[in-house]
């Protein structure tokens, strides 16, 4: 059966949310919503699952700390042990600052890389960029995109219009 993609532009978050609700009732197809700013309540309506980035962040933080500690131990206590000021070779208290800093560094870098992976960015071109008027999505407009079977198209269009879409565009699939 043939499918096509429908995109609708909205002027307000209320109508956007309304539209999302209607589409969900009708089809289980994927829905992408674009907005100039974050709209937290959409997560549940769209049924997005919790982000796993915090775990990534934590893991990379631990890795950073381990690396820091290992580095200091290896360089100062193992590979080239020197009598420095009569202090013990294994002077771990002195190693805390670097370990801590590297933990933070690891976590931060891990987190950001995680974000890029999760969002598949940077991605300088996206089909939506071709839609007329889409550029206002970073200013004051809201867009909704979904894939529907041909036979449902009419109903979906009605739903969108009813929800207050000020523009509806369809792109044949494939």
């Amino acid at each position: 059966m043939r499918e096509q993609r429908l995109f609708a532009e909205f002027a307000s978050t209320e109508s956007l949310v309304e539209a999302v609700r209607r589409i969900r009732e009708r089809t289980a197809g994927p829905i992408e919503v674009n907005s100039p700013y974050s709209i937290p309540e959409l997560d549940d309506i769209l049924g997005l699952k919790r982000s796993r980035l915090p775990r990534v962040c934590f893991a990379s933080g631990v890795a950073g700390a381990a690396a820091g500690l290992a580095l200091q131990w290896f360089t100062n206590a193992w590979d080239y042990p020197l009598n420095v000021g009569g202090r013990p070779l294994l002077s771990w208290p002195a190693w805390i600052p670097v370990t801590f800093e590297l933990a933070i560094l690891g976590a931060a870098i891990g987190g950001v890389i995680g974000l890029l992976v999760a969002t598949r960015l940077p991605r300088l071109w996206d089909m939506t960029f071709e839609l007329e008027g889409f550029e206002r999505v970073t200013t004051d407009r809201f867009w909704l995109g979904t894939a529907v079977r041909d036979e449902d198209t009419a109903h979906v269009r009605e739903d969108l219009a009813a929800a207050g879409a000020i523009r509806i565009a369809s792109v044949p699939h494939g």
Partner: protein
Amino acid sequence: MTSSPANRIDTPIVLDTDDDDAQLTDRLLAPLRSKSKVWYALLALSGAGVLLFVATSIYTFVGGIGLWGNNIPVAWAFAITDFVWWIGIGHAGTFISAFLLLLQQDWRASVNRIAEAMTLIAVFNAALFPVLHLGRPWFAYWLLPYPATMAVWPQFKSALPWDFAAILTYFTVSFLFWYTGLVPDLATVRDRAESRGRRMIYGVFALGWRGSAEHWQHYRIVYGLLAGLATPLVISVHSVVSMDFAITQLPGWHSTIFPPYFVAGALFSGFAMVLTLLLPVRRVFHLEEIVTDRHIDAIAKMLLAMSWMLIYSYVCELFIAWYTGDPYERYVFLQARPLGPWAWLYWTMIFANVLAPQLLWWRSVRLSPLALFALSLVIQFGMWMERFIIIAGSLSRDFLPASWADYRPTWVDLSLLVGSIGLFLFAFLLFLRFVPFIPIAEMKGLRREIRGAA
């Protein structure tokens, strides 16, 4: 600034405006298009400073540290003072955006990006000095643990590698935090751009952001995480910097109170710098409705609080010095500083950091941009002197009276300080011109929340 003092404090926390999203966006993007004469004038002025900095740096690099006033015992003086000063200034930024974000202080939204940019530039500035002040700067990389032919590694009992790690981390994390926050707005600039070239350039930096709900979800998480990471970092960085001094035996340096003391001082000078920058920007770009008096008032109050943390530290220092009965420490704190050859410096510092800020108890002062601007300069001046007194002052009066000596800066020392200020302003001006310095998306989101709540 038009409204009367009476209703000022009652203005909403953010956004004292009725524009719709589009208007607001354009308004916030206006500075990127502005052809302000003031801007060009300042750019030229600070540009001269940059040249001065570059010239004197090269001169030092070629001629040697001997061109400065340093000596034995005062082996550290201006350069390290400048370093600590800039690092300190670089603290308010992350503190404002990260710490206040965690505390959900919404008012931060209109000032955080300026503060973050300030942080980045200040930290970059600061990082130049330790390298420049090395006897053999071309070997600065020896502080990095890499498998060298000499098979020698850095020595991690020293506070300097800690510094290295701390500053590196701080700069990186601050940058990531700043840039992450910037991405949606860069996308906005991309989409509002008239010229293709502009669209291309900003498009690249915007990473192809299109505000997808799923993206927003991850974005919120990571931004929050970065904030959470940056906050302890702010505390740790200046604590580590303070350990450059605290881990030594030198009377006047050897002190357990240093980490919190330095952090307080850092935030103090940092917030002062935020005011120094924010007040003119707000005026020049007519942003009174976005950076409202509430913001200014809040920052002024922070200043007051910080000044009291400092006062507490000063008193502690003096009391402990007296209480230990250690002759060397007593001499430094109770004789050399208040009565020694640099007494005038000490008392000027007391005036700038202890007395002057008390003016902030008066609301009229907190709400007078001019007074605040002046005060912010006084405070930064005072904080520079505090660091100088701690660093050079303590060195010049240590254990053996026979090795005591005073210190006199040369014109090179002074030029480097002045030049670094120029460098700072130069970078900041560029930032104002090419980066949306008020978070647009966040603003709009925020307004929706408030309206929804209301």
